[in-house]
């Protein structure tokens, strides 16, 4: 890099010039905020009005965890480790909000599971997965426990306090996501014979991502001056 380019990157708070390997689509929420801020620029660019929190950096971190295939109990439609790489957050940045989004490809209300209720649980993982091990130790007291009857396109969970813990790499062990059919076996005999797969709605699961808002006080001097 030329000295000028290094200086310019540094002034933008970037230690190096990013060299992305894959160009993920821009999350709609970021594109909307970006467009809204283009004209006129916000009074305070160190606050994210859309979430009403301080912040001048908004990142959408892709989930890097894997599916867990245990097969038991059959009422468990989906079990997945969620892991978000927090190394992108720079030292001195203050995390002010973290919102987990679980996306499905469409709103699904599967006729065969009419009235069927799903149970979603999020657990704090207690260890990183070891190669070849299928057991995933996790804290059995769920961080989130929610039931829903209709698979919405997107489910949002506020994980700000949990995510603050993840700033320390040794504490960033991720989460375990479980979605189960509430209280029954996942496969029921249909009146016409054969099996109803009550979990089929969950097949619409697409991915999980974490929207993280943080504030870099160094780049928000004006705010500091105001304060």
């Amino acid at each position, binding site marked *: 890099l030329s000295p000028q380019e290094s200086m310019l990157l540094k002034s933008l708070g970037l230690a190096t010039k990013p060299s992305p390997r894959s160009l993920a689509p821009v999350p709609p929420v970021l594109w909307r905020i970006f467009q809204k801020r283009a004209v006129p620029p916000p009074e305070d660019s160190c606050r994210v009005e859309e979430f009403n929190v301080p912040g*001048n950096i908004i990142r959408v971190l892709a989930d890097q965890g894997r599916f867990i295939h245990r097969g038991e109990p059959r009422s468990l439609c989906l079990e997945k480790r969620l892991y978000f790489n927090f190394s992108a957050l720079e030292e001195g940045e203050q995390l002010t909000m973290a919102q987990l989004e679980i996306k499905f490809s469409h709103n699904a209300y599967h006729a065969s599971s009419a009235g069927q209720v799903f149970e979603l649980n999020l657990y704090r993982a207690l260890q990183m997965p070891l190669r070849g091990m299928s057991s995933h130790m996790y804290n059995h007291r769920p961080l989130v426990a929610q039931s829903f009857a209709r698979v919405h396109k997107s489910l949002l969970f506020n994980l700000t306090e949990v995510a603050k813990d993840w700033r320390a790499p040794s504490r960033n062990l991720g989460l375990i996501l479980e979605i189960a059919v509430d209280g029954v076996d996942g496969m029921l005999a249909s009146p016409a014979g054969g099996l109803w797969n009550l979990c089929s709605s969950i097949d619409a699961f697409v991915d999980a991502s974490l929207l993280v808002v943080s504030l870099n006080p160094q780049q928000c001097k004006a705010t500091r001056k105001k304060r």
Partner: protein
Amino acid sequence: NSYYTPITPSNLCKPRRLYISFSDVGWENWIIAPQGYMANYCLGECPFPLTAELNSTNHAILQTMVHSLDPEGTPQPCCVPVRLSPISILYYDNNDNVVLRHYEDMVVDECGC
């Protein structure tokens, strides 16, 4: 791209157009948007007497007076940005995350002495 097209033909202290093109600095593969932006810069004279539209400080008024009396000894006041705007940049970081970042004081809106 730096080119000199004064907004009003005058050598008084005013914003001058400066467009920063991110592809010019070879950043187009990691910056998603914008492709560039109008940063502008300040250029021009701060002559005696300073008129109101030159956004001058009291000290600048004093300095132009001294300059008019002793041009060799005391320079004119500087023409500097007095009102700036932020910009937002959408980009990919090294972990392929999409980042929206806001930067304060990136566009010169007004200049003053």
